[in-house]
């Protein structure tokens, strides 16, 4: 008896989400440098302005939450500007003469995905 023809259904989900969310952390070479939320945002915008100019510095970028102690933040950017923001964060080298670097911990088109990071799971 010939096997019955297999039926399948293919579902393609094209991600239509408008925003991407990034969890980033700013590290300084020296300790003891503090930034408040406004200075942090100014730093991000000046990084994008250096690399991509005034047109892309006006991209709608939001800091959803910011922790001053650890200098980590969750950013929201429109999806078309993700590559530009990420590349300007990569190329940012200093703040007011002090060397620093951005560490990108997680990027996702869904905010909920940033709440749990499988890299931080600890095995017993």
């Amino acid at each position, binding site marked *: 008896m010939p096997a019955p023809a297999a039926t399948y259904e293919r579902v393609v989900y094209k991600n239509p989400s408008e925003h991407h969310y990034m969890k980033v952390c700013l590290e300084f070479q020296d300790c003891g440098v503090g930034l408040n939320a406004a200075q942090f945002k100014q730093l991000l915008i000046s990084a*994008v302005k*250096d*690399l*991509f*100019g*005034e*047109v*892309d510095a006006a991209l709608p970028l939001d800091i959803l939450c910011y922790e001053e102690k650890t200098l980590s933040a969750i950013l929201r950017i429109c999806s078309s500007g993700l590559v530009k923001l990420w590349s300007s964060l990569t190329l940012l080298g200093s703040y007011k003469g002090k060397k620093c670097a951005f560490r990108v911990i997680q990027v996702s088109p869904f905010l909920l995905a940033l709440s749990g990071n499988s890299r931080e799971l600890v095995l017993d």
Partner: protein
Amino acid sequence: MVRFKHRYLLCELVSDDPRCRLSLDDRVLSSLVRDTIARMHGTFGAAACSIGFAVRYLNAYTGIVLLRCRKEFYQLVWSALPFITYLENKGHRYPCFFNTLHVGVETFHKLLTTITHMPGTIRTCQKFLIQYNRKQLLILLQNCTDEGEREAIQKSVTRSCLLEEEEESSEEAAETME
């Protein structure tokens, strides 16, 4: 074929001050456009646009400028032109603005010599420029009040019409030959 493709932007520099056009130089203009692209599009834009960038034609009397840029980045150059607000030369600053008239596509890459000897290169830009200049002459004729000026402009209009007829007949001859 594998080659670098360019786009040609035909622009007009408009200014109230008559000294602005006279101080127009291709180096001054080139540095002005590059600075504006660097301001608007950053380091990335400045580097991307300056590779194939050149001022191909410049007419200080009419303020017509022909810029060349690479095909991949011509939109960066085009979008930076409206942000040019002044021309600075030898410490003097003249307010002006750029009016983009035409964007041309090149097929071959050769220098332009005269109208009859151009084998289809920056021809669209050149044709457009000729028609535009003719229309500008007619507009000037309507606007001018002085008799001596009127005669001079009428002479140049009739001369350009004669040239147009000659050029059309020579083009037809060239096509029939082919």
